[in-house]
């Protein structure tokens, strides 16, 4: 029963992808393609809700690559409470985004619209498959599929050079991390002989700590690329070139959270290597701070949200690294809803105003009341204000950090919470309350776009309340904490909102003057810590240099060797060609010379002559008689 439910989650998006992909007439019919895709993800969502109710522990395997000498490689699915929650998040957000896209992408041509939904179905399938995978190898396959889909969707408007470049950048940077993942995975397999998670969890403690640490560090490297952790976060802001609903999907439920989920999924391995865990935590904390500070100076509304995702994923990583994997997943759970909501609201604004720059927006509160309320909900949730879901999860993480004794990361994350509230409300005050008149006449979006936003808005508001149920579901004991700490993150966030209010609404201070005063820091932030420049330099100098050497070696040594062989053969053949005169007599000379040679050989040269004679003697001895007599006579003569 439970495995049927699991298949009901996984198969419909794949069927939708296959049908849309294989039948052009279906793909090019706008309603058909979108309807099939949305229906399939709807079925997945229903099935995932049922799974959430059932809370099964399913392990379903079949032999994929049988082997007699090595242990066979399995393909299958493994569900634990974490996977079930994740399936639910992915399916819900994917459903909302696909419904929303009906409105957002309505101006696309039929074939492009169908392509969009085909990719979406594949994206949903790969992420769901990734979540439920039972073995590392299978995780890797779906992981790459997720990367491929995000490449396809970021570069959806491939005729725009920036979009194509952003897609390639996303692909390369994540692939850079994936190299680590692949090596780590194979190293782990080399030591244990299995890819299966359930077997790995049993066998891993037997490995030496250093070896396991190396494997997990490499695997975490893949997670850093996928989850846009410092210093591999550079692809995520550029990925904003894709359609906004795609950004919502990538940021909330698929792609970037895959890295966090991987760490959570492999936590039974990570817990044996405290050094790697603290590395994860530090990377998460640093990413949170850097993402938030970069968000401060952006002017593109989607880029602000992108950096805020980088920062929030940092929170999740830090929580997982500090040992609170359930907290990380809880923040992922709440973040999925409010970040999807924020992106969809931003998409609604962009759809209406046709600009991404926040300084070209203003006074939207009156023109787009629904979007305003929903964006405010998302912003409050992201800032961690009390009744909204972000409060619960962020609070839990901060208190966990404090209780575990990670003081420095705790303060980093606390400061990040302040920055988060500040930059979110900077956007809010400028875009919705600002007094600049937008060029385009803003209008409220159609209901297919607002409905998913309302649902996500309700989820952002309510997803935090069932905290106790959530932790009980994940079989995790939440600790009680000091009372004064409980108010600290909230206070900090409110302080951040207040600062934004003073700066951007009341305009008591000029932000540009602050920026001038802190000019070194501003400069660093404007240059994005020079990371892009460093990567470009490495690419231009180091990689191109190596490539040049490899190219030279290939062209002159490898190719040269092959060419020399072929040249010598050609020359030899040219010489041998002279033998072929085409005159029959010449060939006959050759044949006769050969015959004479063979006769001469049989007469006296070959040592086996006597033996051959003996063998021939018996069957036809009457022919031999005179010859033998003759040879005897010759001998007599000699005598």
């Amino acid at each position: 029963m439970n495995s049927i439910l699991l298949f009901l989650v996984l198969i419909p998006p794949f069927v939708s992808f296959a049908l849309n992909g294989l039948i052009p007439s279906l793909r090019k019919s706008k309603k058909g393609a979108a309807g099939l895709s949305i229906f399939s993800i709807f079925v997945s969502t229903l099935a995932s809700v049922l799974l959430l109710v059932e809370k099964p522990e399913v392990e379903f395997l079949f032999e994929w690559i049988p082997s007699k000498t090595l242990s066979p490689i399995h393909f299958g699915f493994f569900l634990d409470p974490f996977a079930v929650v994740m399936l639910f998040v992915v399916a819900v957000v994917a459903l909302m985004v696909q419904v929303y896209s009906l409105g957002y992408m309505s101006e696309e041509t039929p074939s492009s619209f169908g392509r969009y939904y085909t990719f979406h179905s594949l994206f949903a399938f790969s992420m769901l498959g990734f979540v439920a995978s039972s073995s590392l190898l299978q995780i890797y396959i779906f992981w790459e599929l997720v990367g491929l889909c995000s490449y396809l969707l970021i570069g959806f408007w491939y005729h725009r050079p920036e979009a194509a470049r952003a897609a390639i950048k996303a692909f390369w940077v994540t692939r850079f991390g994936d190299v680590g993942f692949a090596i780590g995975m194979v190293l782990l397999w080399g030591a244990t002989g299995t890819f299966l998670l359930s077997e790995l969890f049993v066998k891993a403690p037997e490995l030496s700590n250093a070896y396991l640490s190396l494997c997990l560090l490499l695997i975490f490297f893949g997670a850093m690329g996928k989850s846009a952790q410092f210093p591999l976060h550079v692809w995520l802001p550029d990925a904003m070139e894709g359609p906004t609903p795609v950004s919502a999907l990538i940021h909330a439920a698929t792609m970037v959270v895959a890295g966090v989920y991987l760490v959570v999924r492999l936590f039974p391995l990570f817990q044996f290597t405290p050094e790697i865990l603290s590395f994860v935590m530090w990377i998460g904390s640093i990413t949170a701070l850097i993402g938030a500070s970069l968000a401060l100076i952006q002017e593109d509304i989607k880029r602000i949200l992108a950096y805020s995702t980088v920062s929030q994923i940092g929170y999740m990583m830090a929580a997982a690294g500090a040992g609170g994997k359930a907290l990380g997943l809880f923040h992922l759970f709440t973040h999925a809803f409010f970040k999807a909501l924020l992106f969809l609201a931003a998409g609604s604004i962009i759809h209406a105003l046709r600009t991404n720059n926040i300084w070209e927006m203003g006074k939207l509160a009156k023109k787009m009341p629904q979007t305003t309320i929903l964006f405010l909900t998302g912003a409050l949730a992201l800032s961690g204000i009390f009744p909204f879901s972000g409060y619960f999860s962020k609070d839990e993480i901060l208190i966990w950090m404090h209780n575990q004794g990670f003081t420095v990361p705790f303060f980093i994350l606390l400061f990040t919470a302040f920055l988060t509230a500040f930059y979110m409300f900077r956007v809010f005050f400028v875009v919705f309350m600002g007094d600049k008149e937008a060029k385009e006449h803003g209008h409220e979006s159609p209901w297919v776009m607002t409905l998913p936003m309302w649902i996500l808005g309700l989820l952002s508001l309510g997803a935090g309340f069932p905290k106790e149920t959530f932790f009980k579901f994940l079989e995790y004991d939440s600790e009680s904490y000091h009372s004064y700490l409980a108010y600290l993150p909230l206070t900090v966030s409110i302080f951040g909102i207040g600062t934004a209010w003073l700066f951007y609404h009341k305009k008591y201070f000029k932000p540009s003057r602050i920026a001038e005063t802190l000019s070194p820091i501003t400069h660093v932030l404007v240059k994005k810590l020079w990371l892009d420049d460093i990567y470009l330099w490495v690419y231009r100098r180091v990689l191109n240099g190596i490539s040049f050497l490899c190219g030279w070696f290939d062209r002159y040594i490898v190719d040269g060797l092959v060419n020399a062989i072929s040249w010598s053969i050609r020359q030899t053949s040219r010489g041998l060609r002279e033998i072929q005169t085409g005159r029959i007599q010449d060939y006959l000379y050759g044949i006769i010379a050969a015959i004479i040679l063979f006769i001469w050989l049989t007469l006296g040269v070959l040592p086996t002559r006597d033996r051959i004679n003996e063998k021939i003697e018996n069957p036809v001895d009457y022919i031999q008689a005179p010859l033998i007599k003759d040879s005897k006579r010759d001998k007599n003569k000699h005598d």
Partner: protein
Amino acid sequence: MNFYSILWVAFLVFSIGLFGVLSRRHLVGVIMGIELMFNAANLVLVAIGWAYGVLTGQIIALFAIAITVAEVAVGLALFLLIERVRKTVQADEVSLMKG
């Protein structure tokens, strides 16, 4: 007249035929050389049959002559065709197999 002198004659005839095959440019000359070589072979067959007092040699020689006749017929037909297509029956001018 003994067995070995007949073999010597056959050897001579064979050699003359071979020389004809190798030295003649005209295709009819070549086939005449081949005929001489065939005759030498037949002579050996008959001589061996005679020397051993069995009829097998003569019988094989008769078969060989019949086959030779058929072969000459085919060969001459081929030469006629070559003459018609290439306008020549000189062996060295028909050099389709030149590399």
